[in-house]
């Protein structure tokens, strides 16, 4: 009787394990296959394509064109191209405006709202974040019209300086950077405000009763409490700079004279402007992937050190 029961239970366990495994894969596989097809495969495929001379046409099937491996030829071409370096430099400018513009400004506003015990906190937060939720195409086209030589910005400058003559700017990247500052600062306001509100205000009040000035409270209580968030935000801003495409594509398309190129636009133009140079575009893609993965590694290390963001 006893052995019968154990036999029964063991067969039941076995079918249950089989069912468990089948159920697991039935739930996991559909999503995972799509994910592999859309994100993992293109990444690996890009490594292959960057080492070949593939410049378009069918890769598979009866009409396929022969493709040969040419090694690092296109990487050499890329590193020899001054526009690659210009694009990289502009990406770095975006990092600079994010880290030294958006983050301090976002922090400053969040701090004012937090310490000022302002009424209408939600109002300020909602309105300042607004540019971020609107389609980048709308924002880019709007700013293109505002900053055009016959746009409204020259009109405004003329209010203060009547002799101003609108022409093409010598540094077209400045306009792009200012729009980026305008558009994304709200993100950091929200991140900092949410984290400031986790600080126990009674600690600050106690310090002030003991004679601490506002600056001391900021220096010794508030900033240390936010150090993890500030570091993560900085990394977010660095990796975010690699993501800039839409705004610049719509606002300047990388022009005039490629002066506002960033890596993604450089890559897009090599692939789609004139004769497609896919190997070069894929080489750029690999460089961006390497930067991106390096940043992921740094983020993980920092999160470990500061104990995460949540």
């Amino acid at each position: 009787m006893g052995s019968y029961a154990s036999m029964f239970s063991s067969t039941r366990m076995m079918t249950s394990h089989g069912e468990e495994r089948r159920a697991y894969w039935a739930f996991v596989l559909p999503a995972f296959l799509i994910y592999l097809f859309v994100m993992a495969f293109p990444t690996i495929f890009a490594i292959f394509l960057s080492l070949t001379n593939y410049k378009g046409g069918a890769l598979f099937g009866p009409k396929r064109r022969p493709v040969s491996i040419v090694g690092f030829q296109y990487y050499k071409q890329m590193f020899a191209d001054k526009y690659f370096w210009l694009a990289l430099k502009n990406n770095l400018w975006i990092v600079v405006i994010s880290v030294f513009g958006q983050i301090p400004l976002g922090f400053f506003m969040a701090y004012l709202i937090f310490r000022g015990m302002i009424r209408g906190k939600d109002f300020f937060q909602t309105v300042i974040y607004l540019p971020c939720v609107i389609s980048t195409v709308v924002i880019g086209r709007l700013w293109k019209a505002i900053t055009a030589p016959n746009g409204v910005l020259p009109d405004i400058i003329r209010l203060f300086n009547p002799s101003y003559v609108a022409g093409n700017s010598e540094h077209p990247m400045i306009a792009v950077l200012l729009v980026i500052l305008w558009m994304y600062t709200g993100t950091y306001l929200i991140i900092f405000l949410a984290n400031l509100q986790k600080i126990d205000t009674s600690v600050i009040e106690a310090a002030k009763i003991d004679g601490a000035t506002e600056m001391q409270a900021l220096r010794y209580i508030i900033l240390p409490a936010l150090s993890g968030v500030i570091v993560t935000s900085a990394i977010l801003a660095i990796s975010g700079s690699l993501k800039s495409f839409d705004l610049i594509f719509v606002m300047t398309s990388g022009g005039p004279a490629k002066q506002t190129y960033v890596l993604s636009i450089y890559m897009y133009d090599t692939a789609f402007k004139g004769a497609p140079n896919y190997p070069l575009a894929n080489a750029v893609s690999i460089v961006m992937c390497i930067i991106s993965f390096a940043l992921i590694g740094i983020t993980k290390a920092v999160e470990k050190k500061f104990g995460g963001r949540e």
Partner: protein
Amino acid sequence: MSYIRDDVSAKRKIGMVLTYAVLILFTILAVAPLLWLAINSFKTSQDYQMNRLGFPRRFFWQNYVQAWQRGHFGIYIINSIIYTAVTTIAILVLSFMSGFAFSKINNRNTKWIYGSYVIGILMTLQSIMIPLFIVINQVGLYDTKLGVLIPYIGIGLPMGIYLSTEFMKSIPNALVESARLDGARYFMIFRSIMVPMAAPVGTTLAILQISGTWNEFMLINMLTSSMKNKSLPVGIQSFAGSLSTDYGKLFASLMIGLIPMLIFYIVFRKEITKGVSAGAVKG
């Protein structure tokens, strides 16, 4: 004593006024360009050229009518709704399924599969746009709705699966185990226990996904070429490109692009800002 207190409260008042002044200044800077856009969308092009800073001489509603007709925005909005709805629903279903399996069914593969999604959250999409374009092209999906939807779903999955899995981990295992002992199959448990209980994370996910998909431009601009497959942002970009100096209609078309998202934001602003502060937005 009272003299000192007056001094402190006067200082505090000045501080308050300054704080409000600075914040109001920033608020004005944030909305002024958008208000300017709204005002100028009612000007005729001549009116705009003569007077770029002021109010319109008369409100020229025709800009909207003409932009709507000539820009084919009816088709684009329907396409955008299709892309957004299908992507969001697919991501919700697939994320819940994966989240359920990762959090409630033991399997030694969970570690690396789930880990690969976590990497996917942080990955820069821009870096794979060209290879993705080539892949979509090679499998014959260029300029089809499916060729847009599959990448959209694949890109949204990492964040969706991450949020669902983390949420479902907090649902007690005992619920699943007792249902199993009662002989319930996994699909039943998924449908009648997990999905209803994961509704809150589903809402967050849906809101983030809707705004992300609705505004997406880079991929769909690259993956489609015909009017029947373009979305609203791509439609605006190509309509704006076809106008050279007709600013009235340009601004009206930008307003057509702005209004749906503005309404969505006003309704769901709490959930959206919560998502941003949790770092759940892939900007």
